[in-house]
């Protein structure tokens, strides 16, 4: 099972069953796609977003709306679109939470980057994420899917529901903007990492 690639027949059949309303099929489908959904939410949401919340909500929406999917081929991009929308909604909620005193502190502690990481790598990750965050959503998505999740351009195009040419040009612009962003906060040279933070 790989998001954006041709689906094996068994997976396609499971999607057809879920669409047709076979008992238990939609829950089974959620189990199969959970790892993908979780990664999407984690990668696209970043450290300020609760990926588990977003993945859970995405799957619940999937269960509710599965009957609207037209067929197995459409399913991955449809599910990805739900994840994007859920992430966007949660980002809005996170923005609101920042204005409620104390509401964001607990969340940030809970969704931190992991206590086992050493300080330097945590700082590096935070800087990379800060640059990614500064990119427009359309560029960030392409960059995350291709350069982080290592999908091919065609797979990213299928997931995003975009023409291949659009993905390629967005990727080119996104990479340039990302490099520019990294230069802008004086992090691009590995020897200067310790200056950041």
């Amino acid at each position, binding site marked *: 099972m790989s998001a954006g690639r041709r689906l094996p027949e068994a997976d396609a059949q499971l999607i*057809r069953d879920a669409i047709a*309303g076979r008992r238990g099929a939609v829950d089974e489908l959620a189990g199969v796609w959970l790892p993908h959904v*979780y990664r999407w939410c984690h990668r696209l949401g970043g450290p300020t977003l609760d990926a*588990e919340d977003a993945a*859970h909500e995405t799957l619940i929406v999937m*269960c509710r709306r599965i009957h609207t999917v037209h067929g197995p081929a459409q399913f991955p991009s449809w599910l990805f679109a739900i994840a994007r929308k859920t992430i966007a909604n949660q980002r809005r909620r996170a923005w609101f939470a920042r204005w409620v005193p104390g509401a964001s502190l607990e969340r940030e502690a809970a969704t931190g980057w992991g206590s086992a*990481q050493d300080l330097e790598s945590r700082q590096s*990750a935070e800087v*990379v994420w800060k640059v990614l965050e500064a990119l427009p959503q359309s560029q960030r998505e392409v960059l995350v899917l291709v350069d982080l999740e290592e999908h091919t351009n065609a797979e990213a195009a299928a997931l995003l529901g975009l023409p291949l040419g659009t993905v390629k040009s967005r990727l080119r612009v996104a*990479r340039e903007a990302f490099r520019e962003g990294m230069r802008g906060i004086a992090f691009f040279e590995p020897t200067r990492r310790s200056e950041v933070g």
Partner: protein
Amino acid sequence: MSDVRDLMKELPEPDPGGPDRVWSRFRRTRQRQRITRFWPVVPVALAAAAALFLRTGDTPRALELTAEGTQALHWSDQVQLEFAGRGTVSGTDRQAIVNWEQGRIAVQVTPKTGTELEIRTEEGVIRVIGTAFTVTRDRLGVSVDVSHGTVAVDCADGWSGRLTSDTGGHTCLPLRPALLLGRADALADQGAPLATRLLTLDRGVAAADPDSSVHTELLVRRMHTRAASGDRAGALADADAALAGADTGRSVEIRRFASRLSLYASCDAARPYLAPLATTGNAEDAVLLAECTADPAAARALLEQALPQLDGTWKARAKTALTTLEGR
């Protein structure tokens, strides 16, 4: 590009325990949803339960389905049946089993209501996955045609699969020799291709008890079908097997057919079939026997006896044979 990828690697991998936590939370939510979905209807259901208990609802019930013309049955809010034929339906509103014996039954099941419906026939089981479809049990077997949605079909002949309106229908073949004989006749009536008919006859011959009259009947039909498809050796083998099997009163017909077929090869090949026909008094058989008899006197006697009963080409053929004998 590689510099971008290298920098991206600074981002941490997702927590490997995350999916498990999401999964258990998802399961809890789904369970809650299933329960809460029924909450608003609980008081209504409790109030209605007593009234429904005596009539329908989820108390198991059974009905006989018999109709020569088409009849409709509202089994429950989730299941509608329309049938012409014979069978039974049993179970509850949401879990019904139709045992279908003969004829056509169309089923409509409201999707996404958790309704389970099975149509059981001798030739296979058809399971509903939220759909509308038709099952016809006739001499050909059990044919399934799907109008909407998907059905799972498990045929007793070994085929199983899922059908949708796009995949087209499927026919589960009969298994019993007598039913295969019926299917072969139905195919012949429909003018089905010889190869299709032979497949059914092969199955029937293989399945039938060699001492049974059904076996002989299947062999006779296969003899005719093989001969029509140009397989004379196969047809004669079937003739021999049929003559060696149960007596169905067809031995004269089989010998007559086999004799004509074997004459394509030689009189020697035909003689074993022709000789027993001498006592039947059939004039045409007598002509063929005379043509294959080495004794001129016996041949002449056969021809002279047959001649008054013959006309047309057979009469001409007998006269030619007599002339040939006189010239000897």
